[in-house]
């Protein structure tokens, strides 16, 4: 077990964005997080990566309590993430963007070694040809790959992927899914949020479902998909859904 989330609660004023959520992530698995919009998925990521301090609960990473540590320390311990809304460093080149990840990540490399790592990672995600372009000039799918490259360059043990497939066309989705599989093969544990059902069902070992900040289901993709609670969260009344599917 590499990550353990215990009874995390995060409030914004009167809104409980994450409500008493607990789960564990095993080493080298892909754990998917799904749930309707506003379910608290990204907030949960922000708690794990240190952007928000939870009101209650603990985050244990690699046997160490990291709750409330500043984000840069968590990054250096080996948790990298991508952002749902991409955050490229526009006026820096693609390579420099990735070097930031390598320089300040888990290995805290010097500039020369970081450059080598950046080149390798850019080849891995298929952005090497664009290495010297300013990041602001990339299109959205390329920016998503850049997010991923930056996170990988820090040589994380655990990577949090926040909707890396959203906004991609079917071919790009296929390519990205292959990249994610390769990341897992290289020994990195993956925790990913995704709305694209067929992709996350196919790629995840396990899935947890959030709704209104609470965990409502956890298990293998096929079990989760048939869980009445999950269907209700997505579609409303389960009996109605059953009727519809029977017809």
């Amino acid at each position, binding site marked *: 077990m590499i990550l353990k989330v215990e009874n995390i609660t995060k409030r914004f004023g009167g809104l409980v964005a994450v409500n008493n959520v607990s789960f564990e992530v095993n080493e080298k698995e892909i754990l998917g997080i799904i749930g309707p919009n506003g379910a608290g998925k990204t907030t949960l990521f922000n708690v794990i990566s240190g952007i928000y301090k939870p009101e209650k609960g603990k985050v244990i990473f690699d046997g160490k309590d990291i709750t409330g540590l500043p984000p840069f320390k968590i990054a250096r311990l080996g948790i990298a993430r991508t*952002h749902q809304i991409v955050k490229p460093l526009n006026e820096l080149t693609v390579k420099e963007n990735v070097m930031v990840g390598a*320089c300040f990540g888990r290995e805290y490399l010097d500039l020369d070694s970081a450059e080598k790592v950046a080149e390798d990672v850019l080849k891995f995600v298929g952005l090497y040809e664009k290495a010297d372009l300013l990041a602001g000039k990339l299109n959205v799918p390329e920016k998503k790959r850049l997010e991923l490259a930056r996170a990988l360059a820090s040589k994380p043990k655990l990577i949090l992927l926040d909707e890396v497939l959203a906004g991609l066309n079917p071919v790009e989705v296929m390519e990205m899914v292959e990249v994610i599989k390769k990341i897992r093969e290289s020994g990195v544990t993956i925790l990913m949020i995704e709305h694209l059902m067929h992709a996350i069902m196919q790629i995840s070992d396990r899935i947890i479902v959030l709704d209104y900040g609470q965990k409502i289901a956890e298990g293998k993709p096929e079990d989760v998909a048939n869980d009445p609670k999950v269907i209700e969260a997505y579609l409303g009344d389960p009996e109605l859904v059953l009727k519809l599917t029977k017809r």
Partner: protein
Amino acid sequence: MKSLSWLIGLLIVIGAIPMITHDVTLRETVFIILMYIALAESLNIILGYTGYVSFGHIVFYGIGGYVAFLMIQNYGLNIIPAMILAGLFSALVAYCLGLAILRLRGAYFAIATIGVNEAVKALITNLEQVGGAEGIYFNIKVYSAYGGAEHAIWLSYYLMLAVTIAVVIVSWFVKKSKFGLGLMAIREDEDAAITLGVNTSKYKTLAYALSALFPGMIGAIFFFKNGNIEPESAFHLTKSIEMIFMVMLGGFGTVTGPMIGAIVYERIRGFLIVSEMFKALHIAISGIILLLIVLFMPRGIIGFVRDKIPALRRFVE
């Protein structure tokens, strides 16, 4: 290294001309140009690299000026150690201040820095021990330790040249370092930088302290040469705006940019200030030019050139 060596070469050439010709008027002009370059390059570290608009940056120049002036006047310290102390003191003030105000972002930070400048000015104005509103004048004997006023002025000139060269070298190495990469990551997206592992508050504070170090030294030299210091000239907000103007005109975030901006600005100012028609308007005209730059050439002269002629990128940092 190429881009650095030609910048230093240019500075040495500019700096050597008055030494060779012994032209006093030219020396005064070059002294001001060098001072502008050094101030603009210093500001560029926080404004250009880190993306924090320090609007009241002149406060560190004033603080440095006062520290050195009092050290020389009251304790008979030599200008060189006084200058170094002044720089370090300014950097220390910036460091402590940075811990508080660098939590603010964007316009809020800019406004806070103006407030700091005005607050320090008000403090000094009301502090009789440091001369109050009237300021302090050197005892004429101060310069005799340097072999007379003329020698002291030449010494100031050499020191200014040395500090300017040092600022440019430091700027260049910061830009090429891991520290610089971290700063630029902060400039582009602070939230992304911190999740990538950049210790943003430490980096910002260090950048702010570094960008205050040299203005402290420059203030020390300027007021040593000037022979008097008063709050109005030490904490003159217009000078702060001029610094921003030079950085924006030349191209923020580059090493060459602030240098070019400072030289061009000094020329514009020199031209306007002596012309009968514009002498009262030079700040207004600079303001209009600044507006045009921000609108049409947001990355300044050097940014524009680098965009248009990519082949130059290797030689122009």
